[in-house]
């Protein structure tokens, strides 16, 4: 996610990530096939949610 932020300035605009962080994670997960629970901000150990979970779709 940090890599994207550096390259595209996503998460740094009007809402400062307030509205866009979760939708962004959804988009990244959709494109890369990495589960949302496994997405990291900056490498292993920086998962966006508490690690070791499986997603339960709503």
């Amino acid at each position: 996610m940090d890599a994207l932020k550096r390259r595209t300035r996503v998460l740094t605009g009007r809402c400062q990530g307030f509205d866009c962080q979760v939708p962004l994670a959804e988009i990244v997960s959709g494109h890369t096939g990495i589960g949302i629970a496994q997405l990291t901000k900056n490498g292993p150990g920086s998962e966006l949610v508490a690690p070791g979970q499986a997603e339960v779709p709503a």
Partner: protein
Amino acid sequence: MSIGQHFKVAIIGGGPAGIGAAVGLAKRGIGPVVLIERRAELGGTPMGYRKKPGGVPTFVEWTRGRMVFGEELAGRMVQRLAKTDTAIRLSTQVTKIVPAEKRLTLLGPEGVCELTADAVVLAAGAREQTPAEKGWLAGARTARVSFTRHVTGWLDNHGLLPARKPVVVGSDLIAYSAAAKLRAAGSDEPVMLDRRQSPSAGFLERLFFRRWTRPDWSGGVTAAEIMGDRAATGVQSSDGQEWPGDGVMVCGELVPNTELALLAGMAVELPSRQLQLARSQALSQPGWFAAGTVIGGFHGAQWCFFNGRRVARTVARFL
């Protein structure tokens, strides 16, 4: 770039206040009206508070003695809007403003376009303060430092727990609802800390959330730091007290979304970002008005809706 449709009124923001304004204007027979919404759906903030079995009822309002969830409440407002002939532009942002001519440049799914209006209502709502904006919460920007919006996003849409041992920073109604949601989803009892000596949520509000959570409260924290290298591992105060956890939720304390007002050169107080309002919610340029949480403070969806209706009256008088 397509040049100009002209509207009587342009409303920026499709949340309760924007919808209230559109409904109010339609009732007065003013048109055509255009409603511009940044997201792909109408309803604004309360839309994010889904009704779930076993979930914590948050963002509720009492109507005729019955509790109504955020999602339902916003849904009803959207239905009322559908009965009017307001033009709606979803997934559209305002990128440029010429305030005197009330000319807006929009970026939407069909590209860039321009429109003009006789009056503009700013109903952009508010967001939560970032740690940097709080000014007393320092530390690294690690992963798992989240807003309440993220908590509801992870929990309600993905069934993911943002933290097992959450540290909640802030103590208003939003912070309590976040704590309750986390607890109900299976986290440990949250730690809650704030600069204030006593929680900013009222006694009855705290009583309501006691059903789900009794956060471990620490008040009077004057300066603190988010600990952690890759992900947050807790919060440490300047006098050495530590609250370990595996995620920090930065909750409440809303900042009005006044970026557009700044863009238009309106009078805005900085750094608080509060709009300087003349009477009847008029902004510093003629023909510009504001409604809803963008005017500052902490308000329920219903209040915003009625505030939107009220601004419609003012706009009608202006036209």
